[in-house]
């Protein structure tokens, strides 16, 4: 029967071509969208690596005219005053690379036996604790790092996996910025400071012992939820130290949500477009099958007369459409497979495989649903009536 159906499909190749084309194009569109969605959702499913609940960031706007010592003293005083509030757990400083603000600071060095590249966040000793990073190997910064010979850094697991594999990394030293030797003191699980959907996993937290002028941001960890009146108190405390009030305090949780929304909106839009596409394919298929079956009523009548059961008729129509679908999917898979084979886009191959499986699953499900009812109707055609109509 399978050979017979293949013969029938081949002999009707012209009328099947449009159906094949529809399946092929639908697969390509679905595959593209699902690759993008899979990629983003897989990134989203990995831990962000730090806490955003009840963490604020104050973008300090200290006058550039202020000398270095005063600058350092201001930051020390801010920390002291904020830590005096019982509502505050801790305060840490970092450079301008604050989570979700799109700032980047990257370093690389070629003379480590390989090219080491990483995004770098300069942070003070309290920063890892304030951000509640998860140390999976080694330790976090401590006061002794201020007097150490080498600059202490924490690296992410992603960076470790990319460059170091199974090698021991804690306490190892590598050259980075201006041939300065940096010592890895610990590994943290992640630090997706561009947001939940970010795929960047090569990040270092570099310890800066001095509250120097490169620290533009104070990260404030709260004990729990507080009201706007407490934000006003914090605002006044900082303003009292830096003698200006045009700085901004942002809530990391809100920033995280806003950043994620930039990804969710296109994902939902793409899903909506895909839903519309699938609906169109379904309606188109349903219409084509319905038309074909009505056109082939005499053939159904004949087949029933010469011995086909109702089941043979319905399965023949379902198999015919499934074979055309499989041909469309096979050609689609051939083109889709070029992406992981040729590495045309720098994303993990697993994203393509999920997308291929998803697109095939959706199309086959839609085809099966759309072909089921018309094929059942075909099986119900009364042979005597159908043969009489011709």
């Amino acid at each position, binding site marked *: 029967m399978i050979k017979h159906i293949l013969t029938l499909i081949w002999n009707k190749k012209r009328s099947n071509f449009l159906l094949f084309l529809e399946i092929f194009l639908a697969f390509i569109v679905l595959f593209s969208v699902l690759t993008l969605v899979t990629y983003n959702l897989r990134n989203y499913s990995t831990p962000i690596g730090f806490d955003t609940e009840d963490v604020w960031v104050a973008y300090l706007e200290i006058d550039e005219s202020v000398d270095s010592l005063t600058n350092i003293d201001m930051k020390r005083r801010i920390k002291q005053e904020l830590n005096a509030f019982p509502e505050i757990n801790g305060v840490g400083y970092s450079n301008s690379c604050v989570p979700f603000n799109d700032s980047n600071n990257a370093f690389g060095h070629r003379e480590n036996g390989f090219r080491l590249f990483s995004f770098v966040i300069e942070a003070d000793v309290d920063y890892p604790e304030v951000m509640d990073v998860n140390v999976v190997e080694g330790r976090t910064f401590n006061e002794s790092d201020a007097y150490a010979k080498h600059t202490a850094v924490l690296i992410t697991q992603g960076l470790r996996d990319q460059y170091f594999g199974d090698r021991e990394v804690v306490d190892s030293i590598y050259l980075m910025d201006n041939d300065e030797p940096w010592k890895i003191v610990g590994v943290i699980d992640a630090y997706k400071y561009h947001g939940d959907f970010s795929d960047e996993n090569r990040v270092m937290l570099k310890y800066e012992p001095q509250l120097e002028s490169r620290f533009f941001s104070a990260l404030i960890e709260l004990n729990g939820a507080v009201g706007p009146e407490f934000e006003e108190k914090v605002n006044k405390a900082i303003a009292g130290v830096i003698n200006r009030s045009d700085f901004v305090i942002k809530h990391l949780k809100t920033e995280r949500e806003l950043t994620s929304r930039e990804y969710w909106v296109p994902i939902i839009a793409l899903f909506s477009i895909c839903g519309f596409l699938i609906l169109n394919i379904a309606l188109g298929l349903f219409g084509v099958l319905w038309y074909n079956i009505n056109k082939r009523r005499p053939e159904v009548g004949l087949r029933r007369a010469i011995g086909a*059961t109702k*089941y043979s008729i319905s399965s023949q129509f379902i198999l015919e459409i499934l074979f055309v679908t499989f041909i469309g999917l096979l050609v689609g898979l051939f083109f889709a497979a070029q992406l992981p084979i040729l590495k045309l886009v720098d994303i993990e191959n697993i994203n393509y495989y999920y997308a291929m499986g998803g697109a095939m699953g959706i199309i086959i499900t839609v085809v099966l649903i759309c072909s089921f009812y018309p094929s059942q109707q075909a099986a119900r055609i009364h042979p005597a009536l159908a*043969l009489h109509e011709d």
Partner: protein
Amino acid sequence: MISLQNINKVYRTKTIETLALNEINLEVSEGEFLSIMGPSGCGKSTLLNIIGLIDEPSSGNITIANQTVNGYNSKDMAHFRNEKLGFIFQSFHLINDLSVIDNVELPLLYRKSVSASERRRLAEEALLKVGLKNRMSHFPAQLSGGQKQRVAIARAIVGKPNIILADEPTGNLDSAMGNEIMNILLQLNQEEKTTIVMVTHDESMARKTNRLVRLFDGAQVS
């Protein structure tokens, strides 16, 4: 071979009831060539459809090839048609998207016991009998009306049925082609002892058969 007892067929709609067959009693012997004649709408094709188990009587008993087929379910009837009956239609009912040989093989596709090579052999044999072996890779659109009907005959005999049911097999053909088809049917009847029941409008064709049954308004008149 075929025994019909008190066959009635009534078509009912919400407003009207039409008696298509009225108390038909008919016996057809093995190897007999029976023709059924009557004016249009008298129930000839309905009777043939009932004998061919593609329509059911409203009442009455049917025995074919010593089997009482009343009460057969749809699947049993499909298997019975496939094994015991061959059909020939006025409008040939060939599948245009299949070659001649594929059309002829069609009934054997629904017999699980027949292998692909055996199907091909039997189809070639059937085409040889109707003189169309040289046309087996052609498509129906490339054939004349007479050739199409010969293909339909080959399809009807490929499964070696006991009975052939022919519904106006010469109706769409000119007299020369009609005679050619009739000769093939006669040959099948005489040489292979196939029982044939043929509906026809053509008195001259009917005269060539063993027996003629006439219907009028659903009733058997002779």
